[in-house]
């Protein structure tokens, strides 16, 4: 999000669709995410020509081909590096990075970390399906322990990475969660776009071929209210139709679930969500599903100066009052003149 993209522009969903045939497996969660993004863009009011989708490699990384914007389908794991160069070359562009759990956290984990640390102004959508889809079903860095796959026939033994915790640990100033078919996803995307700086969004995505319904435990519509905690700025952390909430166990210094009787959440000690509270954000990203509901929505949002703004500022300051006189530069340093009479300083 930046000055140029705030130029109002009226578009419709159709304006954001390309003429390319979408090639994901029928029923893939990626379709729902694509629609959510295409639906969100007109609401953001940005211009398609000023928007760039950059991806790495994987199922999710085909995304740019389906957006009627500028798009760059790059190489495995490196989308953040391309985005960094592009944004520094033209800070006015609105850049969206599309990556997956393998692309963004395995082969490209290093770049994801540094992009977030530097706080480049962009949106990072990490589609987490806990599996390698495009290479036909191997376990991924977010797969749960025991995942059987072609490369782990006896079950995976390594513990999974937690994308939101990883992002926050890398210094993220915006961390959000959503899932493919959620009606709330456009709101999460809008919040991410409104945040100036690196906005990290973990989007749980159903791979119907290799890891079907792995998120059903919290994403299934039936009983969702008992298993999803949608965080809203300034509102108490309530779920299960307001009968349960999240509170702080002040003695043990961790979160706990509490019962809310007669709607009196204050008496139950339920925390009011403050998106700028980094300590609480650290606890929210670590909140284990099962014992707790799945924390969704904007977990943390507290902007600070962006990388490209600081680079531009420093470049300007360093160039201040200096003339770009290359001929003069060539003559700089230890020079001497050779005349017919010989050299002199």
């Amino acid at each position, binding site marked *: 999000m930046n000055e140029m993209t705030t130029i109002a522009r009226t578009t419709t969903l159709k304006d954001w669709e390309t003429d390319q045939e979408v090639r994901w497996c029928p029923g893939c969660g990626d379709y729902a995410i694509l629609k959510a993004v295409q639906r969100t863009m007109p609401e953001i009011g940005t211009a398609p020509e000023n928007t760039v989708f950059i991806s790495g490699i994987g199922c999710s990384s085909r995304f740019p*081909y389906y957006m009627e914007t500028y798009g760059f389908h790059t190489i495995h794991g490196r989308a953040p590096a391309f985005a960094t160069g592009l944004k520094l070359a033209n800070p006015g562009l609105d850049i969206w990075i599309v990556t997956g759990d393998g692309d963004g956290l395995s082969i490209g984990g290093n770049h994801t970390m540094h992009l977030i640390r530097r706080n480049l102004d962009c949106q990072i959508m990490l589609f987490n399906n806990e599996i390698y889809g495009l290479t036909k079903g191997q376990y991924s860095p977010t797969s749960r322990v025991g995942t059987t796959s072609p490369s782990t026939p006896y079950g995976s033994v390594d513990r999974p990475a937690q994308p939101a915790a990883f992002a926050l640990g890398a210094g993220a100033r915006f961390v959000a969660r959503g899932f493919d078919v959620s009606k709330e996803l456009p709101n999460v995307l809008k919040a991410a776009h409104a945040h100036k700086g690196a906005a990290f969004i973990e989007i749980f995505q159903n791979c119907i071929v290799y890891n079907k319904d792995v998120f059903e435990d919290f994403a299934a519509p039936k009983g969702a209210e008992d298993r999803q905690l949608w965080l809203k700025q300034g509102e108490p952390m309530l779920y299960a139709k307001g009968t349960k909430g999240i509170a702080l166990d002040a003695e043990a210094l961790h979160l706990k679930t509490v019962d809310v009787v007669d709607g009196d959440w204050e008496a139950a000690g339920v925390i009011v969500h403050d998106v700028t509270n980094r300590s609480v954000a650290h606890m929210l990203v670590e909140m284990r599903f099962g014992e707790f509901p799945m924390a969704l929505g904007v977990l943390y949002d507290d902007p600070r100066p962006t990388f490209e703004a600081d680079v531009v500022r420093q470049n*300007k300051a360093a160039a201040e009052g200096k003339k770009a006189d290359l001929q003069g530069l060539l003559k700089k340093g230890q020079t001497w003149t050779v005349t017919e009479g010989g050299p002199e300083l």
Partner: protein
Amino acid sequence: MATAVADEAGKRQSPLSDAVVVRFAGDSGDGMQLTGGQFTLSSALAGNDFATFPDFPAEIRAPQGTLFGVSAFQINFGSSAIDTAGDAPDVLVAMNPAALKTNVPQLKQGGLIIADEGEFNDRNLAKAKYDANPLDDGSLAKWQLLKLNISQLTMDAVKPFGLGNKEALRCKNMWTLGLSLWMFDRDRQPLIDWLNAKFAKDPNLAAANVAALNAGHAYGETAELAGPLKQHHVDPAPVAPGLYRTLTGAEGIALGLVAGAQLAKLPMFFGGYPITPASAILHHLSRLKEYDVTTFQAEDEIAAICSAIGASYGGSLGVTSSSGPGIALKGEAMGLAIMTELPLVIVNSQRGGPSTGLPTKTEQSDLYQAVYGRNGDAPMPVIAARSPGDAFECAIEAVRIAVQYMTPVMLLTDGYIANAAEPWAVPDLTAYEAFPVEFLTEVPEGGFKPYGRDEKLARPWVKPGTPGLLHRIGGIEKEVDTGHINYAPGNHQTMTDIRKAKVDGVKVPDQVVELGAEGGKLAVVGWGSTFGPIHQAVRRQRAQGADVSHIHIRHIWPLPANLGQLLKSYDKVIVPEMNTGQLKTVLRDQYLVDAKPVNKVSGQPFTIAEIEAAIEDALP
């Protein structure tokens, strides 16, 4: 060196006895590179032509006194054209036993050793693995030996300034420099001015260094030396009038890239990651913000090139730079730049390999990597610089090809060129023809084709942000014209052919013969930093009547159109390279010529004598 003097062979026939080679060697903490650098400046001011060879260890501060911690700086200066840093030194300044041991074998027979005997104590002798003191046991008999207690003489000279022991001893290099200036009849004043400027914040330290410099000079002037020390005046070399400066290869590349970007009328984006010996380019460029240069120190080599490609996509001139191991990491991204047909300059400052290899030593062993080292049929232009001054020209050429043909270009230099200095006649920038880039900004007649092509087969360059020209690019095979994903067999064949034809069609100047004639008994074909020793060796052999010519290739890929015919006009072709025969293989493959390899992979440049021997072997 190759720039200052007119290049006609006739002017360069003067005997070589009027050139002197001095090698300063000491512990890596002794300031030998600084001593050498300042001696170089004084040579320039004396009007000598020169070439230098800094030779230092990979360790930043190797344990004191050890053999692997020796740092040396060699300069060859004289009153005739100088092409190399010299084969065998005439004078060796050895600041400790380890410096003597590692450097004395190269010293010319009868050459002069100046040794700091104050450092030849039992401890240092043991570290250098000497059983007996070589200054006393007669083992240096074939050279002239001058033993001076430089440590003590320096301590005495700086005593009035009340420095600590360690700081006082640090002035040793200035004492040595003072003595060297006297030996070659040099003016001290520029050095004194330089010291006062360098230590402006600490006038006492400046004064101590000046005192050490003066004391060394006075020692030469007044000491009644029975031995070999005598003043030696080297006359100025005849150079064309004009403004000169010293230039290292890293400076040449950095300035050439800036000049290239200006000629293309583009902002420059440089993505780099620190690596020896390429980092100096990043350091130079990071101080040039007023030239519309953005530098980015990325998290790794891959991010460095990917960010540069991202910037090129955005309409900047993307540049990245590294050395062999880093270039290996960038390979996949180079393929993407080839596939998406975006301009990019990749500078490879080659060093000894494979793997980590010899980080601070020079080699030319990345030619295969540059020409062939990517997955798929991935053609890319490759240019090689022969000297620091030539690096400036080659950088401009690399930028020109990259933006005119929409392609990544690799520019090869090496550790020797990167660090070595030579006098450089400052060019007049108005003499260079501009090649301003024209971005596509609106739909052309017949519709917008992201992979449509001009007569050079280059596709249009469109900046994101341009209305009406929205499109997607990526690494998957592109459909002809539209750039859409296309896996069809015929399309891949066509696109592969187009990518090859585009690079094959890059216009490069015809190959010239540097020295000698077109056709004859023997051609010595080189590329890159071997220019100096090949040129001198061929000149010497021709002076003795040998039918031998020197050909030096700048455009490694595509090769000059006339090269095949030219090579076939000689009875024999030899190819000296600091690798096991890489250009040789390319020439054999391209032209079916019986090119014979002459190889050296010791981390040291060729000597003139080695090339002369190869010429003598090749000629019946």
